[in-house]
């Protein structure tokens, strides 16, 4: 408990310091609220308008919670297939890496043309942004199992399937989880961007609305909510990891 606290307080102090500097410079230099509202302005706005933004938050959360598991599943399936079929990996893995040079977000207009304005293009977008980190992390985890353990399994006569389930899969878990953590934040981002391209509710939609009204304070509230959503998702995954990878010696990092 004490060590957790030791880890938490330095960034906490940094955040408090940053907010204080922000607050001070806004009032010292008389910056207008439509350019940069102060943290207290933003806090006041978020508490007075909580109801107005609640529905949007729920819409974005819902979109994320549909898209993220689908993206995760696709990422895992891609990783498993490429791992179990080495020739497919050789053929497709370089293409997969190359494909990441296309910013998925730039595909958004195309997705709208192909799939309209409903749920589908949004889910496709989230899937596109979050399957990749999971696929890559899982694949590298699967192929980096310990040599000695692999030798042991082979000499003990383990089948390919046994090697996969008893050695490769468990040893890929830590790596899989780092992929999941990255993808979780990507998923929230993907949901917001998906709402920019065509939605009538959600945090992304709300941001666009407030931007055109120059309600900078509300845009900041929206950003804070996005950060919060990402953090919560991240924390849930970290907890799941702690439970599933409890065999791993904890290093103080």
């Amino acid at each position, binding site marked *: 408990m004490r060590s957790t606290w030791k880890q938490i307080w330095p960034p906490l102090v940094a955040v408090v310091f940053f907010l204080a500097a922000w607050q001070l410079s806004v009032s010292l230099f008389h910056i207008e609220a439509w350019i940069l509202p102060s943290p207290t302005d933003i806090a006041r706005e978020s508490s007075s308008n909580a109801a107005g933004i609640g529905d949007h938050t729920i819409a974005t959360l819902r979109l994320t919670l549909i898209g993220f598991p689908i993206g995760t599943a696709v990422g895992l399936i891609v990783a498993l297939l490429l791992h179990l079929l080495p020739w497919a990996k050789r053929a497709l893995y370089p293409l997969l890496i190359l494909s990441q040079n296309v910013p998925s977000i730039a595909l958004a207009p195309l997705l709208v043309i192909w799939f309209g304005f409903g749920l589908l293009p949004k889910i496709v977008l989230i899937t596109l942004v979050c399957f990749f980190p999971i696929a890559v992390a899982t694949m590298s985890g699967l192929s980096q199992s*310990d040599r*000695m*353990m692999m*030798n*042991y*399994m*082979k*000499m*003990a*006569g*383990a089948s390919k399937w*046994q090697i996969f389930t*008893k*050695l490769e899969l*468990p*040893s890929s*878990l830590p790596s899989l989880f780092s992929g999941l953590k990255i993808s979780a934040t990507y998923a929230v981002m993907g949901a917001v961007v998906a709402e920019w391209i065509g939605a009538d509710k959600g945090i992304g939609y709300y941001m666009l609305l407030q931007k055109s009204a120059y309600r900078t304070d509300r845009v900041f509230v929206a950003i804070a909510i996005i950060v919060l959503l990402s953090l919560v998702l991240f924390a849930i995954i970290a907890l799941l990891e702690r439970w599933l*990878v409890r*065999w*791993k*010696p904890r290093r103080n990092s």
Partner: protein
Amino acid sequence: MSEVTQVPHRNIEKSSPTLSRTAPPALEVSGISKSFSHRRRETEVLHKVSLQVEQQEFVSIVGPSGCGKSTLFHIIGGLESPDAGTVSMNGKIVTGQRGKISYMPQQPALFPWRTIEDNVLLASEITGEVGEQAREEARQWLAKVGLSGFERSYPHMLSGGMQQRAAFLRALLAPQELMLLDEPFSALDALTRSEMQRWLLELWEENRRSVLFITHNIEEALLLSNRIYVFSGRPGSILHTVDIPFPRPRREEITDSPEFIRLKRQLSQWMREEQAKRTLT
């Protein structure tokens, strides 16, 4: 330690000399050679190695490090294929076949996500189902090697010596008859080591598995073995074959007998000569 019982999954008759003379050897390695190429340079690691382990015999290999002892185990276990030569078990050629031996690697290589109990049962799990009876046996054995209370622990919570004992049990409880032990006690301190030697001696004399044992420790080899193969430096080949005459059951006191001391001196000298050749070249 004294109430050592039958090794599970196995019912071997107490060593009957007639059986071991007529039955084909548990392991017969003939003419094994192996080279590895590294950066286009071929290095011969094993050169025409032939050796035998009769049924229910304890055979040791001693030799300088890097002479291909572990590689020989990998070949017997089917992990590597030899460039020449064959491996037979019980009269059948099994070169390159896996799953025929029970193996203790040089590093414990316990699986970090398995509890000690599950680690010990891994080999049985690979060949078939593990029932409650096997688990109960595993727990009894864990207690016997001083690991009771650690059944549900993960390997990183154990000391190096405890991990080696767990890896040893994993080999002992494996369903295969022939055991290959690659320097099983090398990571132990001297005291634990001699305790484990005595324990293995007693255990083996009760159960009589066929064992091929790699060690650096000449005294250990003399105490435990029916026969010792002395390997040359790389490329490893057999320099000397020494039959160890001491009757069984052996007690640790034999280490003080003149014959033991003579053999020990002889083997040490061979080893020193090999080492000297290596430093010259």
